[in-house]
């Protein structure tokens, strides 16, 4: 080789090496860029903007749907309940004699703005106590009359007579489950209803308490129960809930302005005010206005301030109208409803589906890899390996659609048969393998082993058929007539058609090719000298594969499982099409599930840009991204380490 061409070759090598290094750096940077972008979108959820002084708006901002009265409504009746469009309302009040009066009004015709109203039939009871509050329950059937002392009466709204159900809120002392409302409220005490009508706030000097309605059994009156309370160190002067609910502005004596988010139970921000505040008012969902003696000052909050916290995403939260804290994913679109961003049901569903998929994919994939690597005849391997890897190209959308259309409607009917076949096939093959060793000669065995998959196919089909029939007859013999009714009736296990087992099976079929190719790669890359050396020393084929090759390939096989898990966790279309997207959290494999990826697919395009829902979806996607990134990186590290280990051995 001439020195010129050698120099040129060295230069080319260095150039290409640099190019490859730059390219891999760019790949790394783009991955980090995606991560950074998602983190920036999700950041405002956890980093509050807080209260910022804002300039007064140039044009008068319309007040957010604080309901104003039609002129024909008598002045002593106040709006007690209204729906989200504010065209269906109930007015309640006490007339001059202290008797209850009310009316129900609705604009039902979409083509005009005419009210249709009718007076409510209320019992003729007169109330003489001052400072009574009249509240309507969320189902618009009961009226609560709450006194300042803390007792309340519940009256049905449409009754002719008045069977009054007098109940007192828990009083001081006693071992009630909830903290108590003081018997006599302090001077600056008050009550205000939270938008949506499902809860209301009461406050005295240093406490604000949120109370909510809990429905009772049919026909009975609902309960009012304490939901949460907040203690403040300076005297409370005024409390104003935001128009969309959940946020509450508090003016204290200090004088301070505080904003409290009820659902996540966090104080978003607190600011000292200059001057003596007279009134606090919400101009819009994110804008506050405080009125002083001769001026107003405006404050702006970030849209996602306080709406979500790590605790609210990952821990059970006590929502309005629920009897206990729970994990719920219900990011409702309409106003007034409390959005519920519990990520745990989604994460649970993702991991559950992935684990069931792996339960199917690992035995099949790794088993196939071991057989293809050790025993398969080279001719058959040349057809089988590409065929299995081609399966990876099968679009998961098609797989999901076929499963949903063809398998899902019959899955419960076929379940006993499928379980029977799943048990019969491995058992039958095992029995065959054991009896095969004792009956057929070794030389004949060795010739046939390479072609076993082809020869075993009719046997497997026969075993599947036998297993299916056995499963069906066993299930018919169970009390209840079938496996499903036995599970439902005897064990209370709920069985639905689009369940985790079906989703896991479909995902397993999609994951098998990936696990197979990585595991087969790992086995193939074991140096042939190791097996050859063990064979030369007198070990049998199986012994050398089991004790020499497999341990060396083990890290690669583990990596295959981890990468398969990462793939199963990110699988979207199969879950979207096959599942009914129910965010349930249980261990029951025959119940539905909802995964993070399917939720992103369903909801990301409809979430308003840069709203809380949008950002929470990005946060969930970020969690998923991090999970698969860490898993895949670990798998690669394991593989690289094992490869270096092998090279050192050589």
């Amino acid at each position, binding site marked *: 080789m001439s020195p010129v061409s050698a120099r040129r070759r060295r230069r080319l090598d260095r150039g290409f090496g640099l190019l490859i290094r730059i390219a891999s750096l760019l790949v790394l940077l783009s991955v980090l860029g995606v991560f950074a972008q998602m983190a920036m979108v999700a950041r405002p959820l956890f980093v509050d903007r807080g209260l910022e002084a804002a300039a007064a708006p140039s044009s008068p901002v319309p007040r957010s*749907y604080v309901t104003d009265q039609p002129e024909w409504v008598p002045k002593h009746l106040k709006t007690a309940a209204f729906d989200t469009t504010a065209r269906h309302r109930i007015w309640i009040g006490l007339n001059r004699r202290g008797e209850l009066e009310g009316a129900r009004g609705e604009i039902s015709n979409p*083509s005009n703005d005419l009210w249709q109203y009718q007076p409510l039939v209320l019992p003729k009871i007169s109330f003489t106590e001052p400072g009574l509050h009249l509240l309507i329950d969320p189902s618009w059937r009961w009226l609560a009359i709450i006194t300042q002392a803390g007792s309340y009466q519940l009256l049905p709204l449409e009754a002719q007579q008045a069977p009054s159900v007098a109940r007192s809120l828990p009083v001081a002392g006693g071992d009630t489950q909830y903290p108590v409302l003081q018997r006599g409220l302090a001077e600056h005490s008050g009550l205000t209803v939270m938008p949506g009508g499902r809860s209301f706030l009461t406050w005295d000097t240093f406490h604000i308490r949120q109370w909510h309605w809990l429905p*009772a*059994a049919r026909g009975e009156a609902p309960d009012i129960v304490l939901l949460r309370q907040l203690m403040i160190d300076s005297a409370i002067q005024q409390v104003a809930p935001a128009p969309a609910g959940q946020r509450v502005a508090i003016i204290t004596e200090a004088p301070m302005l505080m904003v409290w988010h009820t659902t996540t139970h966090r104080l978003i921000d607190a600011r000292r005010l200059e001057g003596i505040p007279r009134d606090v008012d919400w101009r819009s969902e994110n804008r506050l206005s405080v009125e002083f003696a001769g001026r107003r000052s405006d404050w702006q909050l970030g849209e996602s301030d306080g709406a979500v916290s790590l605790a609210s995403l990952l821990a059970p939260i006590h929502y309005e109208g629920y009897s206990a804290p729970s994990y719920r*994913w219900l990011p409702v679109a309409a106003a007034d409803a409390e959005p519920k961003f519990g990520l745990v*049901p989604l994460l649970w569903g993702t991991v559950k589906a992935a684990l069931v998929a792996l339960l199917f994919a690992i035995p099949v994939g790794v088993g196939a890899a071991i057989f293809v690597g050790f025993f398969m005849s080279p001719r058959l391997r040349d057809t089988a390996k590409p065929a299995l890897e081609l399966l990876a190209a099968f679009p998961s959308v098609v797989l999901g659609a076929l499963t949903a259309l063809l398998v899902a409607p019959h899955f419960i009917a076929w379940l006993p048969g499928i379980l029977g076949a799943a048990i019969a096939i491995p058992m039958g093959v095992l029995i065959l393998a054991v009896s095969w060793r004792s009956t057929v000669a070794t030389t004949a065995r060795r010739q046939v082993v390479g072609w076993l998959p082809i020869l075993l196919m009719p046997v497997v089909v026969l075993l599947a058929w036998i297993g299916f029939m056995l499963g069906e007859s066993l299930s018919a013999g169970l009390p209840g007539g079938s496996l499903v009714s036995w599970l439902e009736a005897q064990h209370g296990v*709920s069985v639905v058609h689009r369940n985790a087992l079906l989703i896991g099976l479909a995902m397993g079929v999609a994951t098998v090719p990936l696990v197979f190719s990585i595991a087969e790669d790992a086995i193939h890359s074991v140096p042939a000298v190791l097996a050859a050396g063990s064979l030369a020393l007198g070990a049998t084929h199986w012994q050398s594969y089991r004790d020499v090759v497999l341990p060396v390939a083990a890290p690669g096989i583990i990596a295959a499982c981890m990468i398969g898990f990462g793939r199963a966790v990110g699988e979207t279309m199969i879950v979207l099409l096959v599942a009914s*997207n129910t965010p349930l959290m249980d261990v029951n494999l025959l119940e539905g599930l909802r995964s993070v990826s399917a939720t992103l697919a369903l909801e990301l395009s*409809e979430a308003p840009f840069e709203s809380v829902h949008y950002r929470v979806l990005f946060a969930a996607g970020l969690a998923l991204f991090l999970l698969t990134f860490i898993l895949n990186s670990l798998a690669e590290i394991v593989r690289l380490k094992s490869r270096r280990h092998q090279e050192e051995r050589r």
Partner: protein
Amino acid sequence: MTERALLCLRCGVMLLLLAGSSSNGATLQGKLVIVGSDTLAELMTLWAAGFSAQQPGVSVELQAGGSAAAPPALIRGTANVGSMSRRMTAAEKARFSAERGFPPLEIPLALDTIAIIVNRDNPLPFITMPMVARMFGDGACGVRDPIRFWGDAGAKGALSNTRIEAFGRTAASGTYEFFRSRALCGGDPLPSVGELPGSAAVIDTVAAIPGAIGYAGIGFVDQARVRVPPLRLASGRSIAFDAMPDEESYPLQRTLYLYLPLAADRELPALECQFLRYIRSSEGTRLLERAGFLPINGANNRTPPACRP
């Protein structure tokens, strides 16, 4: 003639043609982006095809992801028409007003009826609104005692020990929101109620699963595949499927709306004006009835008498 002269002649002719077309009102140019409801998607497609056939210079783009997508799109300006299968809430209108300074133009389009559907082989004799609240929710409308099995709902026979599998729409859907406010009295559905991306998917799922129950607009209902049990009111009267659109007391009737990000008192721009005239024309009304809805008339439906060119 020289090449340059020919080029000038061609340019001049093109300019003249362009000038002529801009002053000629018959060739309307523009793009109409309609964002919103899946329920209205079929109707919007029919109208889009008819309108662009009538006005060749107009292209129509349709995105049907759910009614909740319409108000944000109108506020941001990415849509010039919003279709919703529920009325815009007072909060959404207030958000629009805060951004633009005026409330959106609300046009009631048609009446739609939502039917409760069950599998074709389900022998359920009738259904009531409290039963629906107990099947789809827990504690909704002030009633507890959820119904879990078909036998408890009154469906005797082969299904009596089968679990009730309820299916609905995703949370962005106007149909979902309407069902939540009417049938569940604003409460939350159970977490076990399936969320499907479109009304057609609800029909497919209920037709495939024997123990399924769901809700969809009657325009999607195919009586060969699913069954609509008669609804029994509190007064004892039953409303059968054929009478549902016409009965005033049927509780699941709703109005479908179109929203435009324009002030009500100002004159409409040419594109929107011609579109509104088209949908109120006889052809537009025919397509509306073909999609399974009932037309409505009234003071709030503005038919622009003539549009400025």
